[in-house]
């Protein structure tokens, strides 16, 4: 049962990964090709719930795909991710999205 849950998590993550990749690329392309470059970059800290190192790495990994976000740094105690966001208006919303979209499934894997 646990294996099955994990399999499902992996599938979901892969799907999210591919989808996010396309979205990220398209949005970057849109920004780039716009007549004037208008970005609102920010660095934000994301608290991490997963504990295992590989899980943290996986979380960091997925956050680096989403539209214009990249994990800059993982705090030494692995409790926070620091992300660079290419174009964001609302940092809080972004954090929530990461936790909701990825961390949930990674927790599933970690379990």
């Amino acid at each position, binding site marked *: 049962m646990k294996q099955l849950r994990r399999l499902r998590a992996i599938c979901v993550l892969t799907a999210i990964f591919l989808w996010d990749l396309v979205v990220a690329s398209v949005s970057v392309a849109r920004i780039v090709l716009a007549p004037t470059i208008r970005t609102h970059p920010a660095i934000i800290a994301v608290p991490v719930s997963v504990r295992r190192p590989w899980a943290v*790495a996986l979380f960091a*990994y997925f956050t680096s795909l989403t539209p214009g976000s990249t994990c800059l740094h993982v705090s030494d105690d692995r409790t926070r991710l620091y992300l660079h966001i290419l174009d964001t208006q609302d940092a809080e919303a972004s954090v929530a999205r990461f936790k909701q979209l990825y961390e949930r499934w990674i927790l599933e894997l970690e379990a």
Partner: protein
Amino acid sequence: MFVILLISLIGACVMPLAARVIGRGAGLVIALLPIGLLAAFVSMAPVVERGWVLGEGRNWAPRIGLDLTLRLDGFSFLFCLLVTGICALVVIYAGGYLTGKPRQERTRFFTLILLFQTAMLGTVLAESLLVMLLFWEATSILSFLLVGFDSRSARARRAALMALQVTAFGGLMLLAAVLMIGHVLGSYSMAEAVRQAETIAASPLGTPIVACILIAAFTKSAQFPFHFWLPNAMQAPTPASAYLHSATMVKLGIYLLARFEPVFAATGWGRGVVVTVACLTMLVAALQALRAENFKSALAYSTIASLGILTLLVGLDGPAATVAMVGFLLAHALYKAALFFCAGVVLHATGQQNLRALGGLARVLPFTALACVGASLSMAGIPPFIGFISKEFLFEAQIESSWETAPLAIAVIVNAAMVGVAGVVTLRPFFLGGAKHRELRNGESLSLVAPPLLLAVAGLLISLDPDWITRVALRPAVAAVYGRAVDVDIAVWHGLTPMLMLSAVVIGIGALIVRYWRQIHIRLRGAERFDRLALEKLWERSLRGLMHGSRALTGWVQHGDLRRYLLVVVGGMAALIAWSVIAAGAVPRLPDAGTLRLAPALVALVGLGGAVAATRAQSLFTAMIATGLTGFSIALTFMLNGAPDLALTQFAVEALLVVLLTALLMAVPLASPATRTPAMRRSDAVVAGVMALMLVAGIVDMAAGPQGSAASAFYSEMSYLGGKGHNVVNVILVDFRAFDTLGETMVIAMAAVLARSLLMRRGRAAQEAAQPSVHFSFQAFGRVLSWTLLAASLVILWRGHDQPGGGFVGGLVAALSFALLSLAYGVERAERTLRAGPLTLVGIGMACTLASGLPGLIAGRPYLTHLWWEPVWFPKLGTTMIFDLGVYLVVLGAVLAFLFGLQREATK
């Protein structure tokens, strides 16, 4: 004669050993050798007497034109008698003279003297000019060793070097002359040269030949302006001076001149030069002889004067001159050797050489005084000594020759001076000045006084009964030199002749000189401008100038600035190409334009742009990135033109360069302030641009030429059928041209050895380096990625024979996998993962590569003939795989040697 030479040579090596065993009497025992040789020559007298020429030839190196031919004619015979006879006396004398010296030194001295005897005999017996040259040079070297015998003395060494350098200069001139004669005549025979004197003189090389011969002779015989080495050579032990620097070696120049008289006579100017040089020499030498302060140098200058007279006689035409030359040669050898012996005894006894400090020795050295008197009378030309006869001949020759009175006048003056010197060196030390020396260091002994006495007596006996020597030695010698028999009539009394008158005048003036020597001497010494005539200062100054000039030149050329060195190279190369192209006179061709493919063109231009940017980059990092851009674009270019293997390798190399060079850049400062002035940069740019243009011209012209390679066609055909591989490039690398790859593998291996010896090794770093600070994710994924790369490298290695890949790229990718580990976790971790040392990998790889060729060799085929096995359970197995595996291991090990070392150094 070979036998004689051989005996002489072997004897020279063996006999002196007696000096190790025997103390005092050693000289007498050793003298048996020259005496025996003398006897051997005397036994040939009947042959020579008849005017026959004894010839002997051995093939030595006929293809070189070198035949070991010897010839004994009258002139050689005379020299042989002198060389062996005086050698015997010298050896006996040295036996006494050297008592008190260590045995080892005595042995050395005797060896050198006897070797010298051999060399002299060889020189005068040689018929082939090349053989003569060999022995001639040997005399120079032995003279060098003898002059510098007392090598502790700086003066002796300086004198020896001077003698060597002057005579070696002459030797080279002789070499040139001999080779030119050989070129003109096609033969190195001396007889031939004499016979074809006219041909030689008339050839375009005539002038240089004669000039070279004259210089060679003048240096050897210490003629002006090369005379200065001889007085310095008196640093040699006295027996050696007596032998080399008066009796024999210095006469070789005369020998050479006499032999080649027909040749220089055939030119319009030869005689003139010889006579002029002789006269100058005589004057200078006479003057210096009067100025000389000590015994030996007075004798040395008088020797130079005598050599001048001999040269003069060779230069004069007519038979009388020849007769006089031969006669004087003999007379001089006898009395001058004797005088040197006497000087030696005095020096040995008193340790004092200064003529003004010596006096009254006749009482303590009676026999020496006696010998000295005898020899001096001969030198002064007082009848009935042999010197008188030779002087008569001299004046006769001058009167009979076609020359005007100037040489005659000079000869008179010089001879008068000789009388004076003879008187002085006899009277002052032995008879005048009271008893200055009561205590002697060494007294007379039989071996010390017998030789000079014998010589003095010989001088007297010969002149009293000249028949035998005339018949046996003089007449044949004259005949040999003059080319035909000349009636030689030697007698003390010829009646009242003009020659007698001249002799009387000479003796008269000489007597005056003896009387007023002190005044003349002091006066002349005071006149320092005469010092300059010695010319040794000039020689030394020019040598020093040469050294300084060389140093300055070298400093200018070898300035140490690497940039200018390389500029010379690149500029020189560009000039070389330009010369080559212009001189070849070919017109550049253009290849077919073909179609322009835009994308590849753009890619190539990006590469060029990267290179340009690299030259302009301020920071080294930027320069490196720009360089990388170029490498990358060229890799793409390879790929776009059907060269996937090249592309892959180039990409791998670029990546590894990044890994390795960033380690270097980690250590050094990145900012690179300008090291060149704008003007330098401009000139560098011009040179680089010209070089590039030259290359474009060549490459474009090449590409326009016909195409088609038989090798390519063969490889395309045989790669699969013969090499069992689809990837032709790889089959070339591991099979067709595997030997290149083998060599290249060795190159990489040696680079690894260098890296390992220059860079820090594991365990040398005191503490474990801290974990590198990298992104957490990098460390999380690093290991798995590294294993991925390693696996990929094995796949690349395995598939290489049929698809792009192979040992090289495989090894590079494997190295990258370790690079990844070291970047993520530090170099310690990467090294631990490898377990074996990089050099061990390299060694194993080398062994694999080398061994893969052996089965073929064992199977009786050439090395690196690959064997294949196609079992049912596996596609194919071949020794190429072992080969490629070896390459893989070497590349991996080598890159890791660099990687680990550089990273350790960088993080230190």
